[in-house]
């Protein structure tokens, strides 16, 4: 049955909801108010800005894909394991969230650096990860993965295993069940997870700065460009604000497109 759209949310709750929305929107309005309109176009259309934007979008997309590839299995494993194991796994997954990104960057540097065992092995194969675009993707994946996993896991648990059983009872194999039942039913969580993941990857700064460095065209993503512009003593902060807006508008556009890919919820 089509439910009454509004559901049964007490109407008083509109007030805190609006407060919450204001908290999120007003700072942005304040930011936009400071935009230096005359130089805005020049700032956002500079080749550096565009190359940083492209790099951000590209690495963000790759990192999100990587997160989906390893994060969806991880979420499935956590959602379908017993309460003890699930609690431990969830705690492990939460770690990169708690860690200030900068420390995460140091940790990645320690792991993949030349002096580490792994870095040494990779180095012998002629692979060096720090200062490359790969490092950017790795750093973004590291910080963004937990979002995908935790959001999806919540939805998977809410959905339960009833429909999976029904599908199995109809003779569907595990992969069919996964692709046709489990993931579509958990799609609100999956979409939320992908959005969180992509947004976090795009906005990632600290870990990238330390692990990948700040080389224009190779590792200088938008946040690094913004930070550089902000820190630049000679440069006005207008550039930083302009770049931030550019990043914002692009990211929102991408996310709206992603949502449009599957507009309805399954129920």
């Amino acid at each position, binding site marked *: 049955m089509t439910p009454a759209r509004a559901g049964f949310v007490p109407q008083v709750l509109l007030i805190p909801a609006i407060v919450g929305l204001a908290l999120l929107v007003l700072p942005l309005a304040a930011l936009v108010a400071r935009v230096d309109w005359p130089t805005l176009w020049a700032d956002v259309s500079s080749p550096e800005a565009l190359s940083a934007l492209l790099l951000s979008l590209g690495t963000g997309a790759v990192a999100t894909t990587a997160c989906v590839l390893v994060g969806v299995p991880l979420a499935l494993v956590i959602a379908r394991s017993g309460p003890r194991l699930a609690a431990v796994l969830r705690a492990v997954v939460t770690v990169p969230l708690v860690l200030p990104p900068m420390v995460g960057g140091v940790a990645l540097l320690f792991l993949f650096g030349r002096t580490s065992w792994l870095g040494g092995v990779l180095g012998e194969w002629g692979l060096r990860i720090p200062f490359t675009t790969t490092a950017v993707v790795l750093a973004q994946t590291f910080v963004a993965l937990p979002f995908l996993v935790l959001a999806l896991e919540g939805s998977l648990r809410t959905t339960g295993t009833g429909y999976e*059983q029904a599908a*199995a009872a*109809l*003779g*569907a*194999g*595990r992969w069919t069940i996964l692709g046709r039942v489990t993931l579509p039913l958990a799609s609100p969580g999956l979409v939320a997870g992908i959005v969180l993941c992509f947004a976090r990857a795009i906005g990632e700064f600290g870990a990238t700065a330390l692990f990948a460095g700040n080389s224009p065209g190779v590792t200088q993503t938008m946040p690094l460009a913004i930070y550089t512009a902000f820190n630049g003593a000679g440069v006005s902060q207008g550039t930083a604000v302009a770049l931030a807006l550019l990043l914002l508008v692009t990211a929102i556009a991408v996310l709206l497109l992603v949502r449009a890919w599957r507009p309805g919820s399954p129920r």
Partner: protein
Amino acid sequence: MSGETLDAHVVVRRGVFRLDAAIAADAGEVVALMGPSGAGKSTLLAALAGLVRLAEGEIRVGDRIVDSGARRRMHVQPSARRVVLLSQDARLFPHLTAHENIAFGPRAQGIVASVADAEADEWLWRVGLDGMGRRRPAELSGGQQQRVAIARALATTPAVLLLDEPLTSLDPETGDAVRAVLQEQLASTRTTAIVATHDAVDAVALAHRMVVLEEGVVTQEGAVRDILSSPATGFAAAVAGLNRVTGRVADGRWERGGLSLGLGGQDDELREGAEAAAVFRPGAVRLERVDATTWTGTLRLTAGREAAGEWVARVVRLEQTPAGVRVHTDPPVVAVDLAPDAALGLAPGVPVQLRLAETNVRFLPVVRPASADAPAPES
């Protein structure tokens, strides 16, 4: 594709509940599974489908062992068993249309999309849902959903089909039509099937054999008509719509309290002193009001010297039925069917005199089920 034999002994524990039942079906045979609510029917079917692990026992489909309680590694995945279950809560996929739901099974078995689509269309038509294929389950009525679920299960053409109460929530007209479809499909594909149902009509129409399950144990098994005419337990009698009163054979007569009936030549299977059940139709009992003021007197007076086939009881409850009125009396618990106007003046608590002709009664030996923890069949 035609059915395979099924041969299973299933032991499953669920909290305090323990299911220990053997069930078998020849290739192409349809077996009805009946039992009171909570008897373990759904658990049995889920175990056969591979959704529940066996504690003990073994399940064979054809000549393959697909599950074994002893050897844990022997658990064949549901999808590899060629056993399909329509479970009690239909669980239509909410994100798929009715058409996609029906095509799900064939598609999962690797049938190409165009063929599966055509099959789904045909199934929609067969269950009377032509033109509703593009609706989501939430946009269908309860009975329409149930029909999609039946079509979804039947469209898979498995070796063994397990149906858990397929025809509930269908009105008589639609139910008749769907039962005909089910019957025809099972017969034409010679699918082995086990159908859990609460309705004797469905059991007779669809199945050759019947298994009665009570509190996790099989209490009766045999041809459907045999069970309906000779119910071994109170539950089976209720399914058959019969009264069943347990008593004892004494002096070549059947006795229970003050009630005594001649065995009328049916004494071949009944040993002297053994427990036996008297089975008779509610319509076979004659009922007469006894004056309330003389009730206690009557009871006392008649005690021990009632005529054969006569006893006095109180009305417990009156219930309207399509044919008239059903009067529930006690002791013993006996239902009596009356014409609508014959029940005038009856009310709960009113004493009545009941009369039963020996020729309308079948006497059956009471057999306690083998399992130690099985329940005593009730009168």
